[in-house]
């Protein structure tokens, strides 16, 4: 105590005097909340409830508004909307089967490319291949890939990816044109360039979620595999990846959901032509691109039809995303042994 400087000693004395006095009067620094405090408490908690309710309201509104606005369109176009193959506003013929086909085709192709690359990237970043600093650099690159707006990817796709893919596609078409996937030539926009850009866009999602799954694999399982004499890749492919498989599968489903709903890159690169084709060099259409292109200049009658299309897209993505979220929930809940 003697070493405390005079100034500090003063303050201590003053404080202790005050505290002592107040203590004598039966009060202290801590006290029960006043009526006002309790009132504020009630109010804030109610407000927080409202915040949560608003989130649920968004989901309800999505279903109610889009479903409700689509109802007249559903009555008009019926199930033929989903099975029809022509989209002709002039003749009021609306069929979105080509768009559904294009959505599935481009998303699956993107998932094939982006999924393999994303999982490889996740393995590469979590299984001690790199010095921590290099791994952090690659991780930043993947995260920045996710940060670039899709419209910029679209612009880049038009001026870089299409010119780059075109000669390759021409060669494949000339040499292997009998394979249905290469049966047309790439004249500009098409499924392959669109899917390539889409793959780049879902890679960060797949990589990030897979990394979490791979990190959750207990260290001792890995050590046991190495202890039995497994090489690094035997341990990865036969022990670590299978252990993390639920989470990795969830990552793929979430990536697929993202690909299904992606709009701009596809609207700019897929060619917007309503046809059902196996060829990956052919232009096609997707649901999201169809909505993006037709909504801005739609009249009230066409809006009803487009709302129907939005509902189909919502149903597909909602189902895929709920499955994905649910798999992640299970993957995080199940105890690992």
């Amino acid at each position, binding site marked *: 105590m003697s070493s405390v400087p005079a100034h500090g000693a003063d303050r201590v004395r003053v404080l202790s005097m005050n505290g002592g006095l107040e203590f004598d009067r039966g009060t202290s620094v801590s006290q029960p909340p006043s009526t006002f405090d309790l009132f504020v408490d009630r109010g804030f908690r109610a407000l927080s409830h409202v*915040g949560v309710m608003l*989130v649920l309201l968004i989901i309800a509104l*999505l279903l109610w508004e889009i479903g409700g606005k689509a109802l007249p369109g559903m009555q008009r176009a019926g199930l033929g909307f989903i099975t029809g193959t022509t989209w002709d506003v002039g003749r009021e013929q609306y069929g979105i089967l080509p768009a559904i086909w294009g959505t599935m085709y481009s998303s699956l192709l993107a998932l094939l490319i982006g999924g393999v*690359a994303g999982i490889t990237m996740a393995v590469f970043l979590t299984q001690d291949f790199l010095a921590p600093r290099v791994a952090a650099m690659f991780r930043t690159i993947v995260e920045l890939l996710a940060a670039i*707006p899709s*419209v910029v990817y679209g612009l880049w796709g038009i001026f870089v990816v299409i010119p780059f893919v075109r000669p390759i596609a021409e060669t494949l078409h000339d040499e292997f044109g009998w394979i249905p996937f290469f049966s047309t030539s790439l004249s500009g926009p098409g499924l392959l360039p669109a899917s390539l850009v889409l793959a780049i866009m879902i890679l960060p999602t797949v990589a990030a979620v897979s990394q979490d799954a791979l990190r959750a694999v207990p260290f001792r399982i890995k050590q046991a595999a190495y202890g039995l004499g497994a090489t690094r890749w035997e341990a990865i492919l036969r022990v670590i990846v299978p252990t993390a498989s639920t989470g990795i599968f969830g990552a793929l489903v979430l990536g697929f959901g993202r690909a299904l709903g992606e709009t701009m890159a596809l*609207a700019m690169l897929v060619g917007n032509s309503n046809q059902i084709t196996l060829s990956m060099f052919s232009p096609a259409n997707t649901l999201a691109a169809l909505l993006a292109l037709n*909504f801005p200049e739609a009249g009230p009658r066409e809006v009803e039809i487009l709302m129907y299309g939005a509902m189909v*897209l919502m149903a597909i*993505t909602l189902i895929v995303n709920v499955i994905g979220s649910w798999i992640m929930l299970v993957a995080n809940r199940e105890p690992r042994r």
Partner: protein
Amino acid sequence: MSGATADVSIPSLQRAPLERRALVSNFLTGLAWLVALLAAVPLFSVLYMLIVRGGSRLNLEALTALPPAGFEMGGGFGNALVGTVVMVGIGAAIAVPVGILAAVFLAELGSNSTLGNVARFATKTLTGLPSILAGVLAYALVVLVTGSYSAPAGGVALSLLMVPTVILTAEEAIKMVPKIMKDAAYGMGCTRTQVILKVLLPTALPGIITGVMLAVARAAGETAPLLFTALSSSYWLYQDGHLALMQPTASLAVLIYNFSGMPFDNQIELAWAASLVLVLIVLVINVVSRFLGRPKI
């Protein structure tokens, strides 16, 4: 006894780099490197194109002038820059309070209640909501009701996309606050609201700001939800003494989309320059938020 031990042959523990298993392992490692490097190519290609093609056109005129018509030379995207800032601002003004209130509920007030679990699941599902559907909802809720394409309609669409990000990051940040700090505050006789407002939120603030900034960065680049809520415009939001808030509003993202499909070189150059500006905004926000979100001490 001694005979049994003599029968055990000691396996060769030497590394055999030319053995098939080792070769396969090394080959796969090489493949993984190749994939990782290939995945980095798009990022650098995009950045290279933005700097070369966008950088050559980026000047004061591009940042401050109105977009050019058809064959016009020069021009810029000043009104789109303003439009993006205004609409992201409207979106954040809606999404941040709602998101933080909901996050407080999920992290503290009702973290294990049925409502909390349902809302958390709903939020996670909403993160995967296609951005175009946010546009469709805003179209139904705002455009059809007010009867015009407008900046607020675009802002509402963006807020729908920002809310899930804000909630999930803020919830994580609030949950990271040490329990002893909470207990100390309760011990002093604080109400739950006082604990939340005076202890939890101030302590979690860096994490919450990170989430908000990430949401803002994502919203700034969104195009699809603005296409038919804000549409586009060749005029300023504030012109000739009146504010055209309920009129179609330009944004960088929609301008890039519109100009990218035009057959005029001038517009395409401007699309690249606008992309450069947009990516710079997004990347700067990302880097700053990363810096802020870094755990202190």
